[in-house]
């Protein structure tokens, strides 16, 4: 989709930006390489961010067990930045998305952290106050287009609902025209007529376009897309991604793209966060991950991506073992039991790694590994 030059991204904490060569000057101008990363931005700098998350933690409690779905996650996103969050199923990606939106339902609970949206702290807001923000400043696109739309309401009613939620004074006719306009924007043919259709009369790709139309209805500054293409076939996937690419470009929206598809991240995102057992274990510009995956888990993930050049090497490797039980996390590094580097090392078993800032050939990264500094010199893919 886009060529990617190896222009050094900025620091970690998601603030880096790879060189996206065909997206035009406007975006490139905003690149500020070498920005100090992550966890200690001053407040003034934070208010420049579209989204700034600090030490966000979410648990699910069912009486006996406490599942730590999101553990102490921090990152910053500048306006129009695109952050890819990758990880296995059950690594806490979706819980992170819902936590940011304040949509964690009992027995889940956000237990700590701050969320600044456009400089405004939103994590302590009431549900009513958050309702005024959701869908307007920050919007959501979900994984499965089959179940993301209410089967008994027309497409029009559901798009209009997204518009009307933040424009209560808008007349019905005007909202309907706006809804048709949105459908046209996401390339639905004959939008006026198709407003009165029901979801089951739309194809999967069209439903996902409708989901995107609803999300961009009020021009949000941040869009969280939770596996927006996973349920689609490959052709439709690339169409939907191209559409999303065009729209967020036009509207200047920052995007968190949650996926387990590294290929999509390399095409679509500027920065990447690798999530494992509820934590961001490696955060960097997108080029860094593909050239110098520093965390052993990032490296292992990358080796699992099918690559025609490697066909001769035999079957794809799999990461041995299973993700840890989020209710009974190991004392040290969560990846240690599966880690090719740290499996036998007592330090890894006993001591949770703190975030290390490292700098490699393709930019800086924040890596939660005891061997981060050592590994950045060794790794060759």
């Amino acid at each position: 989709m886009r060529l990617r030059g190896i222009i050094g991204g900025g620091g970690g904490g998601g603030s880096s930006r790879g060189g996206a060569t065909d997206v035009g000057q406007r975006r490139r101008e905003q690149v500020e390489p070498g920005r100090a990363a992550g966890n200690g931005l001053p407040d003034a700098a934070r208010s420049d961010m579209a989204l700034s998350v600090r030490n966000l933690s979410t648990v699910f409690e069912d009486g006996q067990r406490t599942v730590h779905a999101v553990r102490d996650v921090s990152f910053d996103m500048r306006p129009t930045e695109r952050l890819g969050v990758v990880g296995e199923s059950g690594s806490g990606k979706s819980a992170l998305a819902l936590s940011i939106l304040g949509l964690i339902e009992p027995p889940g609970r956000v237990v700590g952290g701050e969320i600044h949206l456009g400089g405004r702290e939103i994590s302590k807001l009431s549900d009513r106050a958050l309702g005024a923000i959701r869908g307007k400043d920050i919007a959501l696109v979900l994984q499965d287009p089959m179940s993301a739309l209410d089967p008994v309401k027309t497409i029009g009613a559901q798009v209009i609902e997204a518009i009307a939620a933040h424009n209560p004074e808008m007349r019905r006719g005007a909202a309907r025209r706006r809804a048709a306009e949105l459908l046209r924007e996401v390339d639905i043919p004959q939008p006026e007529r198709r407003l009165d259709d029901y979801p089951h009369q739309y194809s999967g790709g069209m439903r996902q376009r409708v989901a995107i139309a609803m999300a961009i209805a009020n021009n949000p500054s941040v869009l969280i897309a939770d596996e927006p293409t996973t349920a689609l076939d490959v052709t439709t996937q690339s169409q939907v991604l191209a559409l999303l690419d065009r729209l967020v470009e036009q509207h200047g929206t920052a995007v968190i793209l949650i996926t387990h598809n590294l290929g999509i991240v390399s095409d679509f995102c500027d920065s990447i966060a690798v999530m494992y057992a509820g934590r961001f274990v490696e955060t960097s510009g997108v080029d860094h991950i593909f050239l110098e995956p520093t965390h052993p888990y990032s490296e292992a993930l990358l080796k699992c991506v099918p690559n025609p050049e490697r066909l001769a090497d035999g079957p794809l490797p799999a990461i041995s073992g299973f993700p840890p039980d989020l209710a009974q996390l190991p004392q040290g590094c969560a990846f240690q039991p599966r880690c090719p580097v740290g499996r036998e090392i007592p330090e890894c078993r006993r001591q949770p790694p703190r975030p290390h800032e490292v700098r490699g050939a393709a930019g800086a990264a924040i890596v939660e590994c005891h061997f981060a500094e050592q590994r950045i010199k060794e790794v060759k893919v």
Partner: protein
Amino acid sequence: MGAVVAKRVLGSIGAIFGATVLAFIIMRALPGNPARLIVGPLATPHAVASVSHEIGLDKPVLTQYWLYISHFFQGDWGYSYADGKSVKALIGERLPATIELAIFSFALTMICAVVAALLVTYRQRPVADRILRGVAYVGFGTPPFFVALLLLIVFFRSFHVLPGPEGRLGLQAAPPPTVTHMYTLDALIAGQFSTFWSSFVHLLLPAIALGLSSFSFIVRLLRANLLEVSREPFLTVARGKGLRRWTAFRRHALPNAFLPTLTAGGLVLGEFLAGSVLIERVFNWPGIGSLVFDAIVKQDYAIVQTFILLSAVIFVLVNLVVDLLYAVIDPRVRIPSVATA
């Protein structure tokens, strides 16, 4: 939509036809000669033959069937052999009591089931959930007549808070002027509030006894559906648009969760409208159930066969309405999907 209506109506006609055939065959297969029953055990064979001829028992079976259904649909339901009154008048006298009890019990059942299911799903009350599941478990398994007796023992005999088995009204109250045949409504129309209250409290225990097992069934169904639907992504999407929790739940979870309940509700209402013999006996309720009970005891052929057909027709019609409502609410029923279009 037109195709759906036509299909459902044809299906209903078929079901009613099946019911008439079945009722006809069962009535003929029962032991005992109706003509002998009418004229009595001491009558001469000549008298029996003459009555047989009169009620058409000597005609060919197909002719008998034709007479049977044509008379039924013309409203010519014959005369009770026991006391000579017209069956139409007898049923017309009793049906309103059954309908009033059925509608009241149905409304009570549905309202309680919806409120209880919302309490434990939308409100997420774990203790209430456990209690409700217990009640539903016991309520589903206990025979209604036994529930009726228990209710009478507790609320009438022990605590004297509700009237005993004395029918639709207290002894002092006179029936209100007839408009709808429903005592509660007629009393309100006539402005007789004491009569309204009397008929209302007389309805309570029979309605609870009649409705408890259906309540248990529906509340479990609704609870399960609501829990399932509230996990649907489209609810998260609706919340993501900025809708309040209740708004999203009301607009998107409730309609979807109600769909299966609608079918169940139709079955329940149809069953209630056909009258419950045992409940009506226990509460001395002058409804169609007790009429049929007496008719069976007296082998009053004309009443029983009319009742069988009437209840079949009511049941089929209620379910026809439910099917059509279903098509109105669920677009997937009336509009083909992309895959098949």
